[in-house]
């Protein structure tokens, strides 16, 4: 049985960050009836995370943002499209699974704006997945202590709530993202004791053509460097966070200098008293919905599993599009370009008519490739794993247990290790340790790194059993032109539950 065609959206978009917002406004502009689903309380995703409108911090934190003009333009367009009924916006909705049916793609959601939360579903003839990415992590001794946060997490506290993650903060890892995180914390009054970038900036010189085509990006970096200099925050390159110490919470961090091959220089380590460490090693795209639908994936230069797309941002599954970090981590400007193209294509428009955006996309992709080549994760982290170092934070699997799975039980990859000693089996389903486990099993078995299955999860986000067992409602597309309602039309339904 299929739902009546007129209540099906022409395009369902999952994710309202830069890519999803661009796709939604573009698709609506091309006449599509759009549902925009997002986990956040308001549009913007992680990049444009801002305080809740009701918050007293609203508007006071705009100085933390690099490009709010694009945001304001997109959000204004979004509210126009919502008024005309062209876009139905569903914030605080977690998409946990999706299925392809004759009527289109049925996205199953949990509406967290209601307490208790409620199951709903929304159907679109085309689907745009713009689920973004999260900080990539590697394990190190002490990383499970309270006070160690992802760089993105520290940024989210600051941008979303105006709250500093700590008072004495060390920022570490690799990639240009560390700079705005450190600058933001310093501007907000935290004492940032240092930025420890594992790679050398000289690595960028090898890719100068890509940089020359993207001078705006370079200017952005210079701006953050100036802000760090103003707050006397030392930026150390070829410097790596090796451990964090403390009883019950972070008390100090140890950093070491790396030689030209990315190996710690003996005797170069220093212990720094801090209460907080913000760390990030690039990003991991969120591919669950795409993998569930059978979209083909590939491994990017940075080692991330990404979704394969064509020039129209369409995946190998017809009707399923993706834009932003899911098809290669490249930042907000690239996400906007890809989202614009995906929105046009999903609405049935001609991408060729937007030659400027297509050129922009190719320019920004070359910059992203240069960034990945300039900021690899130094391989030495594997040798720093100690027996008691936690690898999987959820299931509390340590280095010795994972090593035993490889040496004694014959685990040859992340998947077999998971089945034997449970790394990746807990609440987060390997989102945090998946990359690390794939690297460690490859290194310890001297086989090539193959992260292939780490994005395969039966559900995209955990759902409470009680919520799962409740009947699901359906979010219908508005049937009359110009229909504006504060809440979208929701009808109770029993279809999936009776089946």
């Amino acid at each position, binding site marked *: 049985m299929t739902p009546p065609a007129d209540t099906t959206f022409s395009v369902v978009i999952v994710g309202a960050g830069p890519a999803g917002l661009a796709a939604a406004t573009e698709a609506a502009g091309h006449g599509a009836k759009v549902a925009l689903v997002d*986990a956040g*309380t308001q549009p913007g995703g*992680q990049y444009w995370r801002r*305080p*809740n*409108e*009701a*918050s*007293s*911090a*609203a508007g006071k934190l705009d100085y933390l943002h690099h490009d709010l003009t694009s945001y304001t333009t997109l959000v204004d367009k979004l509210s126009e499209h919502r008024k005309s009924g062209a876009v139905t916006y569903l914030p605080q909705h977690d998409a946990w699974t999706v299925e392809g049916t004759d009527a289109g793609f049925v996205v199953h959601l949990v509406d*967290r704006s209601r307490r208790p939360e409620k199951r709903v579903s929304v159907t679109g003839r085309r689907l745009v997945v713009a689920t973004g990415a*999260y*900080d990539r992590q590697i394990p190190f001794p002490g990383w*499970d*202590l*309270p*006070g*160690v*946060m*992802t760089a*993105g*997490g*520290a940024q*989210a*506290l600051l941008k*979303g*709530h105006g*709250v500093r*993650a700590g008072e004495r903060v060390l920022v570490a890892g690799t990639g240009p993202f560390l700079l705005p995180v450190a600058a933001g914390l310093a501007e907000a009054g935290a004492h940032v004791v240092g930025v420890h970038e594992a790679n050398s900036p000289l690595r960028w010189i090898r890719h100068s053509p890509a940089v020359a085509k993207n001078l705006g990006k370079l200017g952005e970096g210079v701006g953050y460097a100036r802000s760090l200099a103003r707050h006397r925050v030392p930026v150390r390159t070829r410097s790596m966070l090796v451990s964090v110490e403390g009883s*019950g*919470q972070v008390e100090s961090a140890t950093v070491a200098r790396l030689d030209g091959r990315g190996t710690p220089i003996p005797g170069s380590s220093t212990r720094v008293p801090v209460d907080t460490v913000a760390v990030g090693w690039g990003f991991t795209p969120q591919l669950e919905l795409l993998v569930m639908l059978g979209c083909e994936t590939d491994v990017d230069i940075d080692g991330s599993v990404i979704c394969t797309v064509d020039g129209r941002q369409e995946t190998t599954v017809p009707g399923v599009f993706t834009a932003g970090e899911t098809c290669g981590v490249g930042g907000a400007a690239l996400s906007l370009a890809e989202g614009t193209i995906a929105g046009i294509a999903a609405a049935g428009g001609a991408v060729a008519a937007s030659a400027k955006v297509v050129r922009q996309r190719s320019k920004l992709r070359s910059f992203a490739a240069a960034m990945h080549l300039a900021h690899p994760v130094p391989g030495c982290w594997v040798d720093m794993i100690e027996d008691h170092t936690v690898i999987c*934070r*959820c*299931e*509390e699997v340590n280095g010795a247990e994972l090593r035993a799975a490889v040496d004694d039980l014959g685990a040859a990859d992340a998947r077999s290790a998971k089945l034997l000693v449970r790394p990746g089996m*807990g*609440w*987060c389903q390997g*989102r*945090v340790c998946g990359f690390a486990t794939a690297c460690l099993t490859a290194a310890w078995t001297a086989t090539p790194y193959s992260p292939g299955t780490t994005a395969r999860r039966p559900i995209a*986000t*955990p759902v*409470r059993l009680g919520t799962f067992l409740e009947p699901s409602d359906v979010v219908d597309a508005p049937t009359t032109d110009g229909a504006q309602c504060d809440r979208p039309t929701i009808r109770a339904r029993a279809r999936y539950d009776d089946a």
Partner: protein
Amino acid sequence: MIDDSSHYFTFDGRRIPFTPGESVGAALTAVGVRAWRRTRVHGRPRGLFCGIGICFDCLIVADDIPNERACLLIAQAGMTVSTQEGTGHDATG
């Protein structure tokens, strides 16, 4: 005019102020609370890690419901939150 004194929730019996729209995790961090869960296996303290709903490290009990993500849960006046022991489903974890 909102009376600011109404913007409190309790954490393990302690009054925690918050600004409207703030997450429970952000409000706790703002007053220096770093941990509100003890792990199932080794009883290790945990708090915010990813801060964006991915890692499930910041699980907390809110109004008797365990396994709420403190980073996403919006604070409400009068809410009672407490440290989560283990799975949060029984006293022994």
